[in-house]
């Protein structure tokens, strides 16, 4: 479900800005490192992890805002290929920056109160924190849906997504909406990055491992569709799990196979709309 948060950010950025942000995994990784940094700096302070979950995504959103304003804005008019090159450059830059600041070692964040321990389910003990993460998926999904469908900000976003020239003509501040959406996407990546460390580790290289899965999710669900990202994340998770049960040796390939099948049958994704 954590992957859904990242995929959702990737998807709404593409939907509105028409930018395929290759550096989205890097923003996630940056979130992880920021979360680690805050928990370490505030070691001993009660609830330090939850503070980190509050602070780290904001830092990442801020970085996202800077990227949008200073780097992406000048090249919207250029060809798509320049965006790929730029965002790929960002992948390298962010990875190197993390390496310079936090080194090539790995860091651990403890499971926070009150989600320590596990509960018995279907004869298998299941960690409570993982249940919390699973619950986070729908919560964020509903939150985002409400934001986009029910608020003024959402209306603006939808207007710009629909037709940027028309929205501009009608008085919507398009550049500001772009920055806002990019920051929202970055914030989601940062949130995922700070929620994940308690079940895993913070280390370099997690950016690429994550971004590939997220691209599969977004392609399955349909680029630009929030519901698609949600469904895509569920499908990918289930495929991997069932793949492991059926043909474990080939489980690594299952996500890709699924993606290829969907691209053949419905090139615009399950929830996407043909252009």
């Amino acid at each position, binding site marked *: 479900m954590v992957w859904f948060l990242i995929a959702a950010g990737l998807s709404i950025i593409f939907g509105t800005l028409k930018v395929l942000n290759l550096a989205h995994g890097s923003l996630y990784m940056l979130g992880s490192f920021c979360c680690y940094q805050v928990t370490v700096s505030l070691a001993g302070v009660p609830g330090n992890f939850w503070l980190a979950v509050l602070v780290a995504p904001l830092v990442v959103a801020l970085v996202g805002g800077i990227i949008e304003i200073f780097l992406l804005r000048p090249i919207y008019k250029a060809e798509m290929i320049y965006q790929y090159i730029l965002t790929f450059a960002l992948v390298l830059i962010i990875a190197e920056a993390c390496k310079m600041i936090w080194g090539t070692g790995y860091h651990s964040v403890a499971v926070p109160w009150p989600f320590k321990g596990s509960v018995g389910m279907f004869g*298998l003990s299941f960690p409570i924190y*993982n249940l919390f993460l699973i619950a986070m998926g729908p919560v964020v999904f509903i939150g985002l849906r409400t934001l986009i469908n029910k608020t003024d900000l959402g209306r603006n976003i939808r207007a710009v997504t629909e037709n940027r020239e028309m929205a501009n003509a009608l008085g919507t501040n398009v550049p500001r909406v772009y920055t806002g959406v990019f920051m929202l996407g970055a914030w989601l990546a940062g949130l995922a990055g700070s929620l994940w460390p308690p*079940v895993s*580790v913070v280390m370099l290289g997690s950016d690429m*491992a994550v971004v590939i899965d997220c691209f599969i999710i977004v392609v399955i669900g349909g680029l630009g569709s929030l519901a698609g990202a949600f469904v895509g994340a569920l499908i990918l998770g289930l495929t991997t799990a069932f793949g492991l049960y059926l043909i474990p040796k080939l489980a*690594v390939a299952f996500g890709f196979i699924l993606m290829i099948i969907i691209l053949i049958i419905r090139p615009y994704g399950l929830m996407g709309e043909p252009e």
Partner: protein
Amino acid sequence: MTNTLKAFGIMLATAALVAVMGLAPTTVLAEKPPIKIGFIHTMSGPISMYGITSAAGAKIAVEEINAAGGVMGRKLQLIVRDDKISPEAGLREAKDLVLKEKVDFLAGTISSGVALAISGYARRAKKIYMINIAQSTRITEEKFNKYTFRFTTNATPYFGKGPALALAKTYKAKKIISLGYDYEMGKNSLKEFKATYLKMVPDAKIIDELWVPLGSTDFTAHIAKMANSGADCFYLAGIYGGGELAFTKQAWSFGLYDKMKAVQPCAGDVETWGKVKQGDPYPKNALATCRYPFWAIKGDQNANFVKQIREMTGLWPSYGSMDAYVIMYAIKDAVTKAGTTETQKVIKALETLKMDTFVGPVEMRAYDHQAMMPTWYGIMRFTPDLPFPHITDVGKLGAESYHTVEQIKKVRGK
């Protein structure tokens, strides 16, 4: 008046300085020139604990040897350089040490990439290079050259063959499920493990092989599969460092360690688990290999070594520190045996070297220049003696855990 006094003072001071400086070379000249050892290691950055403890281990040995009169009346001199885990930097330091400092030996380092770069240079410069940590089997197998010697275990006894031998001696599991990172080392480790183990325990079976993309930190789906697979043991192939830590956290929270036995080759070394406290997730009851279980080795010499490393660095002694210590004594023994520091003669002496170290006898194998350093194994637990989880019920493996000469001949295509 004051000015003349000042001038006089300066003159006096200068004269004294000149006298001291003039004296210094004559006292040095009275002694024989030292045997210089260029020690290149990763002394900065996040994995510098290996370099720092290794240099300390080498220093302890050098001080002991010099206090006992040196080697053939010559003192050993250690020159430590930082390779910053970069092959370019390592090569540059090696060149500088050989050309400028005129060292007699090169030693050290952790990264196999850096070690291969230095090894190549050692061959061109015709200097002996002694490795204390780098694990890649390629250094002594495909990329072998006669100037390079390794005084540490390599990936074979550590990840694949050693764990298989250890499992056959301990848990003797019958139904094993493997989980590995999908890359060369992961595949090789499992191949090695399978070949050795199935031969020793013929009724055992690898019931499934699971693979995850390299760098992945989400193992939850795999852990669920492992828990329900009916296996009585799992084996981790090529998952170490951060990946191993992530896996262990998840396996721990899903209760996998209570369900089946575990073989986690890398879990035995203090570097991964040294910071883990009681109550934190750790590979409970896992069978692990270890390159220097200092807590399980008897004798004053070992205890003294651990104490000195702790005092010098504030860190637990890494296996690199023990290996570096052994290397300095290997240099002493080989030079004494050869009666010279002349490279070709020392190589001959090293090839037939047999040493008695505080971790037991160590023999050099002439064919691949791989010292038959022991590999230890044991069960991961907490005991009251140490603040971190460590291997207990420790056993020791020797030459049997390495590739045989015939296997290496095959690899080299001879």
